[in-house]
């Protein structure tokens, strides 16, 4: 029993898929991402809009007059952290025709957003969740380059 408890308490903090399989997984998932930047190199990141470290990460991406975004194309996957209760805001962002702007409002300007947070995006959210679990996303931001976590 004690053994089982200890197994439960230990978070899985390693990537579950090989880089190659991760890339395969991401190739299906990337249509659900919020894409920022136009650079030749691809970066995939799982974030939670209410996670302060993810917010800092986004801040870095937009820094230096967008130099990063000329070098990289960043695929952002909104993936809720349980304790952050961000499903509503994720829905609101995904429902918006201006996803990137809304994401910035929430994450960088820390604005309260109101919108169609009830309309279902279950398909997207579920797809991200399934892929994240397969890959082994254990933290936010979870940054993947060449299919490997940073």
């Amino acid at each position, binding site marked *: 029993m004690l053994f089982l408890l200890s197994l439960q308490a230990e978070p899985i903090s390693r990537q579950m898929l090989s880089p190659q399989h991760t890339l395969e997984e991401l190739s299906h998932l990337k249509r659900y991402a919020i894409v920022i930047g136009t650079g030749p190199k691809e970066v995939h990141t799982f974030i939670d809009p209410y996670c*302060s470290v993810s917010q*800092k*990460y986004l801040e870095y991406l937009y820094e230096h007059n967008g*130099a990063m975004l000329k070098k990289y194309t960043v695929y952002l996957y909104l993936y809720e952290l349980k304790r952050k209760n961000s499903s509503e805001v994720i829905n609101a962002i995904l429902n918006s025709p201006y996803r990137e702007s809304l994401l910035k409002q929430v994450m960088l300007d820390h604005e309260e957003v109101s919108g169609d947070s009830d309309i279902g995006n279950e398909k997207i959210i579920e797809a991200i969740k399934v892929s994240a679990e397969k890959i082994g996303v254990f*933290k*936010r*931001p979870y*940054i993947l380059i*060449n299919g490997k976590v*940073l």
Partner: protein
Amino acid sequence: MRYNKLPYSAYLRFLLRYRVVILVFLMTLVAAATFLVKQEVSSQDGQLWIDGSTANSELLNKHYKSYYIHKVDVDLSNKKWNPQTVRELRAFEHALKSIPQVREIRSLFSYKYVQNSKINEEQQMVEVLSLEDASDDDTYLFLKENRQGYKKYFDKNHVIFYIVSNGPSELKAINTPLSYSVSNDFINKNFNQVIIFGIVMGVLSLLYFIIFRSLLPILLGGLFIYSDGMLTIAAYQLFSAVSIMHISIALIAMTISVMSFTYIYYKWHVLQRKFDAQFVLYRVISKTIVPIFWTSVISVVGIGILIFVDSHILYSIGMNVLLSSIIGFILTFTMLPILLSFFTLKNPKIFSQRSASSFASMETRYNKKGLYFLLLISSGVMLYSLYGHFMKPLSMESHVSTYQIQAMLAKKGSDYEQIIQLQRIEQQLMAKFDTVNQVSSAYSMIRSIHEQENPKEPFVLKREDVDSYLFMIDMYGLEETLMEKGRLKLLVDLKEGSDKTDVLEFLRDKDLIFQDSASLLNLAKIESLTLLWSVVFFVLLLIVAVTYYITRLVPIAFIALIVNVIPLIWFYAAIHFFDIPISSEVLVAMIITLSLSSDATLHFINYYHMNRSKPRSAQKAFEASFIYIGTPMGMGNFILAVTFASMIFVPVQMVSNIGLYSSILILLSLITDIFVLPVLFLNTIKTNHKLKEYKYTH
């Protein structure tokens, strides 16, 4: 034989007939040179060394600029470490940033540290941060707890700022309650050249007066040396491709003209009693023109060859010696005889006549053991020099106290290969040199990121991980810190007081481009030294060849070689023994000695050779040579040694060092010329049957 049928007599008659016209022409040239030459003579030689060197050319070819790193040390021993001190340090850094030409300040505020910003297991990210935007209170607390990581900038009671600037701009007084000191080279010391040349001319005049008991050599010598110096500087400005005029130009020109003047004036002075004025001039010219011509040839060909090298300092010295020798030769046989022709001395006195005669007869009764002992010791010294040359690199003076080497990879890009190259260099540096404190590069940054991310996993850089690390470098805006226009940088921090020559010698084979001027200066010196040794050997070879050409005797040519080598090996051994850093002062001193020693040897051997054509014994010819050549040779060297020694008191280190090294080398040369050359010569003519019988056959 009447003297007007002898060689040079037609030339002398021509000279005397048109003496006023020639003198007016020459004086007009000197006057024009006085007014037209740029009066500024520099004692800053750093740029001269760097320009034209291979390392600097590589840098310029890749379109980079070199920059200067200066160290500012803030002493906090009388301060408390609190937010107020942090505020003052920040204000101080701000003031440093506002100095013209400053491009970057490296300090505890700008230092990038890696930290895992972790809220919990689910929210974490490795960040690269600096204290630049942190509050004074946060900075105070952070540094209190993380002092170890900041050792480079914050050690004991000292806070270090490194100023990276585009030029050696002057650090003006900063209004701060902090007490600070700046590495010396940051302060551009100027010197009053009028005072320096005033001292030199004053000492020369005094010595001429003491030796010749007359004001005439002061007047003529002053005019001759001034004319030679001015025309050399003017010609240098006219013909030299290097515009910086170093103080050594004036000093080398002065040395050459002092020796020529002393030989000629001495000869003229002592012959005043014996012959009429015109015949005295004829004798002076005929006895001195051959050795002075050949000395000039050796200087022009041997040292003047340096004008074909790219290094600006060596080019400058080559051009300088070339022009000094040519102009000195021309003036010695135009201006000087003309000036002398206006004067006669009724009762010429000389300080050293009796002592020279008695010294000459003493030398004829020399002790063989003494000679062999000296040669044996010199051989030992030579072995020590050779050991030093091959086993221990010479230290190079770089006038800096920053102990940093800034370089970048020659190959552009930031791929796996480049980062692995940085890794290899860092690992080799740390393993090979105790003097290396720290190596900072993209590789070290990547390693720090890994250590924060996976503290338990040993770091092995894999090809597939490079992109991830480069993403982080981009994200934290580290490109400027770690790269320069597409090339990865490497910053090596050395321990305080360590010699960076060996580290640089190691690094220069690693396909790097060096960027800080102190390292470029060191590398230029390493490169120049190799070339300089070739020049020294070439000059020695020329001396031997010319001596053989004059005498057609191998033993005499061999003596010429020994006599010229001895001062150099003693000096080189002293450089190794006292660990004297190689500087342009040392270089100038060696060049001066090289020209002087060939001068003495050729004058002595030529005079002896000519005297042997007369029906005299070898000893008699030797005594005459010693009196007529040994005396002015000793005088000239003594005058120069005292004059250069007087420069030791000039409060500019560069000039003071030239004075010190040159006077030591000239004294060594003088000792060899007085004690070794004649004795070795006498020993050879006594023991060598073939030489005893030889007659002038030309």
